[in-house]
């Protein structure tokens, strides 16, 4: 997907914003454990950073009640002397994991405070997409030379239909900024949001079948920078699930009513649009006799 190409100093520099799903309700019942998942992801990040010296990686954690920036490879404080908590982790990612742990603690507190409205066990995709786009916008305004940004969404939680409007808004902003949203969905059901996001912005969507080969999927499909995507064939989904959720009940619907002024979607007939306030006229289906009835009446006179 070509982006603002004239601002490039080198074609294949990429800025990858990774949206990591840390929804505990999802991770508590999956085939792959969170630590295995993390090791695949961290190795993948390392690989991306190794592809080009100027590549940048940003990680945003998508939690249950909040989102936060976890890691930014362009900040030099990461490489500083960090106390080695064990022999295992390379210092590059020690700060990432520390921040992740802090984030999870905070998220837990927030979800406890929030009370317990019943909602689907979804992660806060809209929030992290917005944060990613804000970061990218800042990069755009930073100067002439900057890498081509793209967003990679690693998610397993199902879609939350109450976030439909916000997610669609972020997707359209990404389309406007010409930032492709790739998505890798590791959950069970299908995510309509992610499919639509990738389709609209020109990114790649894939659902890996084998989760223990996740690293292979990530490096094969999602590591290519935007310039090279012109020469490389990536798997594209055959169809896209374009279902929307209605604005009144947040249910996913196939057929519904649409306001002709603001294009809000409703599942049942309303007198007035709740978004823009326009009054709807009477439906044409209510009108009586069809033309053929009238015609039949004429000869009898």
């Amino acid at each position, binding site marked *: 997907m070509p982006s603002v190409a004239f601002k490039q100093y080198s074609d294949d520099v990429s800025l990858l914003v990774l949206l990591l799903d*840390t929804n*505990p*309700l999802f*991770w*508590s019942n999956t085939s792959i454990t*969170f*630590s295995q998942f*993390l*090791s*695949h992801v*961290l*190795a993948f990040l390392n690989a991306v950073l190794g592809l080009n010296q100027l590549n940048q990686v940003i990680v945003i954690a998508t939690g*249950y009640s909040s989102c936060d920036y976890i890691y930014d490879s362009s900040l030099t404080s990461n490489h500083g002397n960090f106390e080695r908590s*064990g*022999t*295992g*982790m*390379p210092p590059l990612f*020690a700060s990432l*994991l520390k921040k*992740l*742990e802090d984030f*999870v*603690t905070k998220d*837990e507190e927030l*979800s406890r405070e929030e009370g*317990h*409205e*019943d*909602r*689907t066990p979804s992660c806060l995709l809209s929030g992290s997409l917005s944060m990613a786009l804000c970061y990218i916008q800042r990069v755009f305004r930073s100067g002439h030379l900057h890498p081509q940004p793209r967003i990679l969404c690693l998610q397993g939680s199902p879609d939350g239909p*109450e976030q439909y*409007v*916000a997610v669609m808004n972020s997707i359209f902003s990404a389309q406007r900024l010409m930032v492709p949203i790739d998505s890798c969905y590791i959950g069970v059901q299908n995510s309509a949001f992610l499919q639509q996001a990738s*389709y609209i912005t020109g990114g790649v969507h894939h659902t*890996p079948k*084998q989760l*223990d*080969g996740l690293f*292979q*999927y990530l490096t*094969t499909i999602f590591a290519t920078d935007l310039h090279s995507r012109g020469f490389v*064939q*990536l*798997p*594209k*989904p*055959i169809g896209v699930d374009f279902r929307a959720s209605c*604005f*009144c*009940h*947040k*249910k996913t619907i196939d057929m519904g009513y649409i306001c002709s002024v603001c294009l809000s979607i409703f599942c049942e007939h309303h007198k007035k649009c*709740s*978004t823009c306030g326009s009054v709807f006229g009477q439906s044409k289906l209510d009108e009586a006799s069809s*033309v053929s009835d009238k*015609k*039949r009446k*004429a*000869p009898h006179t």
Partner: protein
Amino acid sequence: MAGEQVEKRGVKYKSSIKDPGTPGFLRINEVMLLFVPNDPKSDSKLKLQTKNIKSHKYTKEGSNKPPWLYLTTYQGRNHIIEFENYSDMHTCRDFVAALLKSDEEPKKAAVTTSTEQLSIKELELRFKLLKENSELQRLHKQFVESKVLTEDEFWATRKKLLGKDSIRKSKQQLGLKSMMVSGIKPSTDGRTNRVTFNLTPEIIFQIFAEKPAVRQAFINYVPSKMTEKDFWTKYFRAEYLYSTKNTAVAAAEAAEDEELAVFLKPDEILARETRQKIRRVDPTLDMEADEGDDYSHLMDHGIQRDGTMDVVEPQNDQFKRSLLQDLNRHAAVVLEGRSIDVDSEDTRIVAEALTRVKQVSKADGETTKDANQERLERMSRVAGMEDLQAPQNFPLAPLSIKDPRDYFESQQGNVVNVPRGAKGLKRNVHEAYGLLKDSIVEIRATGLSDPLIKPEVSFEVFSSLTRTISTAKNIIGKNPRESFLDRLPKSTKDEVLHHWTSIQELLRHFWSSYPITTPYLHTKVGKLKDAMSNTYSKLDAMKESVQSDLRHQISLLVRPMQQALDAAFQHYEADLQRRTAKSSDGERPNGYV
């Protein structure tokens, strides 16, 4: 009637008996008679509306006269058409006779045959549209020429195309000549002392446009004080005096003859107009006019019209005109273009029309007192320098940033969900978070798993991805945004698209003919139905003929077309049945077949 129209080549058109005749091509149809000469340069083209033909006569076959057909119109003009042989003449004569007879019949013919008077212009327009738009031409050929639709029905739905075009065809205006009026040289007769000027309406128009004083004088003096001829004589006398550069004589004659003086003086009206223009200009905006426009008073350009540089006595200053003045004035008028459309030969009308135009433009430009005031204020405001002004403290308006939560919360509405025990959820969440944190701690301790990924797994992933990519490529094509149509061979694609447009056209006419109230509509529907069945079978044939890998997609594309046709057929059948059932009942309401 003998036929729709008659066309003949090798005819000659004569406007009178003595005229040798121009060879050309003749076409007569119901509405119009058109004769086009073979030689495009000759201008004896003839276009007649057949309703104007009053009577016709013809030369007899047995006589030794050539085969002529005389046509007389209601306007009293006679046209003679000479044919190559008598049989041609007879066919034309019969056609014209039939036309004349039918014209006399009262027009209670079927409402449906169109009685539009097609002007030649409209026919030309239609022709041009067909030529430009090949798709339209194809449709036209397919339907109108195979008599499925008549010409008028075809164009009835395309009124927008016709209407818009005709606006574009307004006549192009002729501009003004760049030859200057004062450059008109008279013809002199050496023997007698006479100088002859030639005056055409074009020149009159230019004189009036360039010299408003002359125009004003014309309106004032003619016909009250002098005839037009006298007026122009005086004018040209003044011109002659100018050309002789004899300012003394000019002054003398001006003193005698007051009308002549008008022509010799500098143009007052012009000077007034330019002064007004200068006043109106907003110096902060643009320099539309400045004092240099008042060129009649700039005496420092000393070159006279004939290129000499004489010194003139001051009191005779006003009787001199310089070349630059003339040039400037002429150029200004030419650039303005023709401000009026009056094509009349009457000088007075031209003069009055020009005056009216100038008055209107003056009235538009006149500024009232208030407007003037406002202009002055604006000028002073714009001309002010910011850093010399006193500091202005504008009152700050507070930002009103709406609370974004309003928007999102109004969307929440009633969120319906499966109710769960609150306590149970809390426990679940807490547990889940605990698990998550444990994972993180674990990975911090142990580091990345080693080996990260098993080679067999890796290989499986690769092979499945390759399979996915290759199958997707076969089904969708390299670019998922590319439509299926682009992958078809060009001829098939064109055919599919053409079928689509022709089906649309047919269906439009079909559905608009219902309910059937006249026999005309009945026949029309019948014809349409035949055409539609034709197209249906063509679609089937296309589906068969296409390659096997594209067949499925083609049938998907074609399906909606066939469904639409099926719906139309069903309606037709149902209607037919209803009609026959009713007629078999014995009811015969008027108008039904």
